[in-house]
């Protein structure tokens, strides 16, 4: 109590200096908070964009399918697996996919194409593919009256093959039994843009592709969307799967993106560190000046029986109170910009490409993390730079009290 009273009054004593220190520390807090908010917000925005694009949060494959894909490396009893996982907590949706590298033939041209079998309903709930249909309509399960299955075709492939809605698309591939698979499909939709992931893909319903490739209750990929991207890793780790299957979070599937993001984040934290370092030097300077000026006073405190420990704590307490007040002021200052960034966002003059994902709007994040990390940093660094002046004050020789003014 005595300590608190002394600390408070000492802070109020040199109002101008305390105010300047407070302002520089709250400025530090403000910068940290808005920058962390922006960095965290932008990344979760980007992660959301590409996980919703086609990756999902967690994928399941046959053990080494990701590194060495093959038609035969299938997930068996996939319907049961999909149904089971659908019921797990935090799972938003689950879908399965079949991949078949094929030759696509239309009019008189041939092009290689990635043919992907999807469950139209589940896929639409898991990714944004349905929204990328530019012409025609979303995939349906059944056959047309003419007895052909419908197909969605990527826009680049359609252009290359000179095909449009209603045209026949001939696909040639290898069936799972090794036989030659070939069939005619009717184009009912064109998806994507010239630079989107699906530009050279063909999408068939699972029923159609299984018949095409002579597959049964099998798939190459199970894609899981969770209620938040941050759950991906623990979810993937906790999944219990048959031995030959592997679950991987998006961080592993999109490893290059994830790594470049981590590097970028590190860079951000380094620049934040530099800001804090500069603020700390200013704080060190004022705390040191404040204690040097009061050498005589500390001498008196010690002469009349104040323990060195208490003198030390007095300086630390003064710094702590200032730092805490700075965090509160910084929080009040940062509230509006962070709120704006998070719920409205900053529209960029030019879209930024990050790991193949484009984004046009800079979003912030409003979370305990964003507010607490700067607070811990500001308070921590203030206490750190106060250690030396506090020690110096604690060691003041009481003799200095006797020196005539």
């Amino acid at each position, binding site marked *: 109590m*005595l300590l608190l009273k*002394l600390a408070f*009054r*000492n802070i*109020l*004593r040199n109002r101008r200096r305390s105010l300047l220190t407070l302002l520089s520390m709250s400025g530090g807090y403000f910068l940290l908070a808005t920058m962390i908010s922006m960095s965290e917000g932008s990344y979760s925005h980007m992660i959301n964009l590409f996980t919703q694009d086609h990756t999902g949060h967690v994928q399941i494959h046959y053990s080494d399918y990701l590194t060495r894909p093959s038609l035969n490396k299938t997930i068996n009893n996939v319907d049961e697996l999909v149904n089971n996982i659908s019921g797990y907590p935090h799972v938003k949706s689950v879908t399965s996919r079949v991949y078949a590298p094929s030759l696509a033939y239309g009019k008189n041209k041939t092009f290689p194409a990635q043919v992907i079998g999807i469950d139209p309903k589940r896929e639409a709930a898991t990714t944004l593919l349905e929204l990328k249909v530019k012409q025609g309509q979303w995939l349906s399960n059944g056959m047309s009256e003419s007895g052909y299955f419908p197909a969605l075709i990527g826009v680049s492939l359609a252009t290359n093959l000179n095909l449009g809605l209603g045209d026949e698309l001939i696909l040639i591939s290898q069936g799972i039994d090794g036989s030659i698979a070939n069939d005619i499909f009717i184009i009912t939709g064109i998806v994507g843009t010239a630079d989107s992931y699906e530009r050279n893909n063909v999408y068939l319903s699972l029923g159609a592709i299984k018949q095409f490739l002579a597959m049964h209750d099998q798939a190459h990929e199970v894609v899981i969307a969770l209620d938040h991207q941050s759950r991906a890793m623990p979810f993937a780790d906790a999944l219990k799967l048959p031995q030959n299957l592997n679950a991987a979070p998006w961080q592993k599937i999109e490893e290059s993106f994830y790594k470049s993001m981590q590097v970028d984040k590190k860079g951000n934290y380094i620049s934040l560190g530099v800001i804090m370092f500069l603020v700390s030097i200013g704080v060190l300077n004022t705390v040191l000046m404040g204690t040097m000026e009061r050498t*005589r*006073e500390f001498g*008196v*405190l*010690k*002469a*009349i*029986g*104040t*323990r*060195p*420990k*208490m003198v030390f704590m007095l300086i630390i307490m003064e710094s702590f109170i200032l730092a805490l007040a700075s965090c509160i002021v910084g929080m009040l200052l940062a509230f509006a910009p962070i709120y704006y960034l998070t719920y409205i966002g900053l529209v960029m003059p030019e879209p930024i490409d990050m790991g193949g994902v484009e984004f046009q709007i800079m979003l912030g994040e409003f979370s305990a993390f964003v507010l607490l990390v700067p607070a811990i940093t500001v308070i921590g660094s203030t206490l750190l730079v106060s250690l030396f002046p506090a020690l110096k004050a604690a060691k003041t*020789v*009481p*003799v200095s*009290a*006797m020196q*005539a*003014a």
Partner: protein
Amino acid sequence: MTSVIKTINLSRHFGQGDTLVKALDEVNITIKKGEFTAIIGPSGSGKTTLLQLIGGLDETSAGNVILDDKNISDMSGQELSDFRRDHIGFVFQAYNLIPVLSAKENIEYIMLLQGVSADERHRRVEHIMAQVGLTGLASRRPTQLSGGQQQRVAIARAMVSNPSIILADEPTANLDSRTGMALIDMMKKLNEQEQMTFVFSTHDPKIMESARRIITLEDGRVVDDFVK
């Protein structure tokens, strides 16, 4: 009467070689409980140094200081700190009140360190403030008090926790002689009432007169020790 302060061959040297200054040179004095002693001597004779060593504010170069039968050179930093708090009251030439605390809070400070209860603190503060004539000035900050008033607060602060010794280094040097005399008279009265041991240094011949014992220093040595 028992001895409260005893110095044995007490020395304090500064510098070395040609610049060696023997601020105190083998000083042996014994001060008994309840004495009212003045230390006098020309400037640079070692008065301040002697009071600092007796009060444990500085380290000795040689010799010992025995206070209340304890050798303070054996004490650790914190022990000495607590010893000063409980056994010694200081009055400085420059008053040295804690600027952010009011008169009352300055007087209370040591009792707060000692953990004295609020009631007891209040009682003692009231009593001592009346004794030193500060009634009504309790909530003033040091800057709102005259030099004489500040020094009375300092004396109250030094006495309120009933230390066995009060050490005062030229307590009246910054005051006009009338105020200074009044202060010394007050100290003398408190000394008589409370049987507290006072040791103070001074330059002022009029103030020396009030002392019952006068120790004269010259070049760090005791050259005269006179009891009236």
